[in-house]
């Protein structure tokens, strides 16, 4: 508390220091009110935008979902009819099952590859910074652009995927990569793992850099094996980063849209929940019906985000 008074004479050589100090120590209520008003004013633009484009639409969504809102024309209140219909809609239920399956397929490979990359580069050896940057580039470029890229490269007979896979002996030449359900899902999963593992790597690297090196050296002295060090030191101390990376990856997979919309446009069996919402609301113009699903999404993502928030709060068990 003392330094702040020490600064004043430096900034105010001579003169009004005393008066200012008094003013400072006991701000008048008018001044405090003015400061409070300034604080409020500073936050207003951000709050206005968030209310206008997040909170209001959220409330509006709840209202719409209780009506039969069309694109144009009259509408009326129909209660929970949309929600009831959802649970009997085979297309919707399929999109939920599909999204969950897809999330289950990609989450662990992304995690383990990301973890492996972080371990590989953890020692800060020659070149590890450069490698870290290179491994992260697919994430930087973004999945949308990369989906277009693979739209070219997955062409049967013409893209490099066919060419590389047949030279590696993993597939006969001229495969249709995005036609059948299983193969498309596998192909897109591999692309997503390639895209996202760099992010997990960076998050885990951040956590690993906070682990004191002495712990490993002590374990070395005790002759602990590599695996033992990972299980006993790295993983327990990395719990927060691990939780964060898994949650980010699960949310990302739940909200998947671009890669399936771009690479599997004509395949209804590969429709994710967000794709279903988009198609229902903006292709079939069942705005209210699509919105009711989107709200269920808020609840699911809200729960996952809440877990993320608690994990970040620190000492929470997860």
């Amino acid at each position, binding site marked *: 508390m003392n330094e*702040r008074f020490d*600064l*004043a004479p430096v*900034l105010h050589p001579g003169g009004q220091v005393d008066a200012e100090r008094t003013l*400072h120590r006991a701000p008048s209520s008018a001044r405090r009110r003015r*400061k*409070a008003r*300034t*604080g*409020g*004013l*500073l*936050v207003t633009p*951000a*709050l206005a*935008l*968030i209310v206008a484009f*997040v*909170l*209001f*639409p*959220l409330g*509006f*969504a709840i209202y*719409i979902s209780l009506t039969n809102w069309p694109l144009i024309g009259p509408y009326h209140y129909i209660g929970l009819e949309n929600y009831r219909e959802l649970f009997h809609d085979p297309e919707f239920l399929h999109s939920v099952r599909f999204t969950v399956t897809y999330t289950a397929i990609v989450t662990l490979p992304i995690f383990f590859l990301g973890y492996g990359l972080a371990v*590989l580069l953890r020692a800060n050896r020659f070149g590890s910074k450069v*490698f870290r940057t*290179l491994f992260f*580039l697919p994430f930087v*470029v973004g999945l*949308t*652009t990369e989906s*277009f*890229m693979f*739209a*070219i*490269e997955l*062409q049967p007979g013409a893209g490099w995927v066919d060419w590389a896979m047949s030279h590696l002996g993993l597939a006969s030449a001229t495969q249709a990569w995005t036609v059948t359900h299983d193969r498309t899902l596998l192909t897109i999963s591999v692309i997503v793992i*390639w895209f996202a593992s760099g*992010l997990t790597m*960076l*998050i885990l690297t*951040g956590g690993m850099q906070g682990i004191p090196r002495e712990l490993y050296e002590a374990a070395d002295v005790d002759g602990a094996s590599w695996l033992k060090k990972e299980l006993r030191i790295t993983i327990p101390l990395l719990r927060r980063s691990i939780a*964060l990376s898994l949650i*980010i990856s699960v*949310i990302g997979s739940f*909200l998947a*849209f671009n890669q399936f919309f771009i690479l599997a446009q004509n395949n209804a069996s590969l429709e994710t929940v967000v794709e279903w*919402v*988009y198609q229902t*609301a*903006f292709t079939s113009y069942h*705005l209210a019906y699509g*919105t009711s699903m*989107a709200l269920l999404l*808020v609840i699911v*993502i*809200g729960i996952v985000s*809440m877990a993320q928030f608690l994990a*970040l709060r620190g000492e929470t068990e997860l």
Partner: protein
Amino acid sequence: MSDVALEPTRRAQRGRRDRSANFYAYLVVSITLALFFVLPLVWEAARSFQPANLAAATPRGADFTHFTLGNYRAVFSQEHILTNVLNSLVVAVGTALLTTIVATLAGYGLAKFRFRGSGLAFAAILLALMIPFQAVLTPLFIELNDMHLTNSLVGLILVYTTFNLPFGVFVMRNTFQQIPQELFESAEVDGAGVMTTLVRVLRPLIVPGLATTAIFAFLYSWNEFLQALTFLETDSKLTLPVKLFDIDTSTYGAINYGYLSSGIVIAMVPCIVLYLALQRYYVQGLMSGAVKG
């Protein structure tokens, strides 16, 4: 290279072992992985300089002997992609600027001023962090449509800014909290107003936070696809990703993959350049942990 933390004798030992099998194994594995991660991107860059017809033919080494700017010339003249690149640039720069300004003000207010409702304001902003835009896509479309903000770059900037704000405010609030209270007080004693303090005194100290907020907002808006697809309609308003989608799903006969590949490279370059330039701030933002996938 940086085994400095080890004591001298062990460093020497470790160093010798490092140079041997262990180190070369690390190099081989890392280089192989680097090829796995980067080669697809590099290949696409090379692909974009091939004559367009080769994009639909079996790849051969000989295809890379004659490079041409044909795809780029064609995509700018025939697909009018220049407009879409400019749209993307306007939206990304606009969003980065607006997000940075609004987030700085709010972060300043929340970190350094006590006022009624500040807890509520912060809670509202945190709540927004948990709501994915996908969840409010329909009501947002109806609302923007009523405000005549669909098919408008301004509308898109406002929406992108809003969804980048929770993260930005979070980052800026942390930034301001780390500045010693004495600095604010001495500025105040000095008679500097709130804005003068912000611009004159604090600016150098908040640059890292500004850079983090700006780079996330820019990359988000440059790459965003679903909202742009939903809110934009006419060709002259489309951002680059939506334009690429139109080329990819071209209804006029065969898809020109040559055009598409040059468009992809145009979309890739700013991300990579910006990331390489501001990597430090990007990683800092990531570590602050408020990022959604």
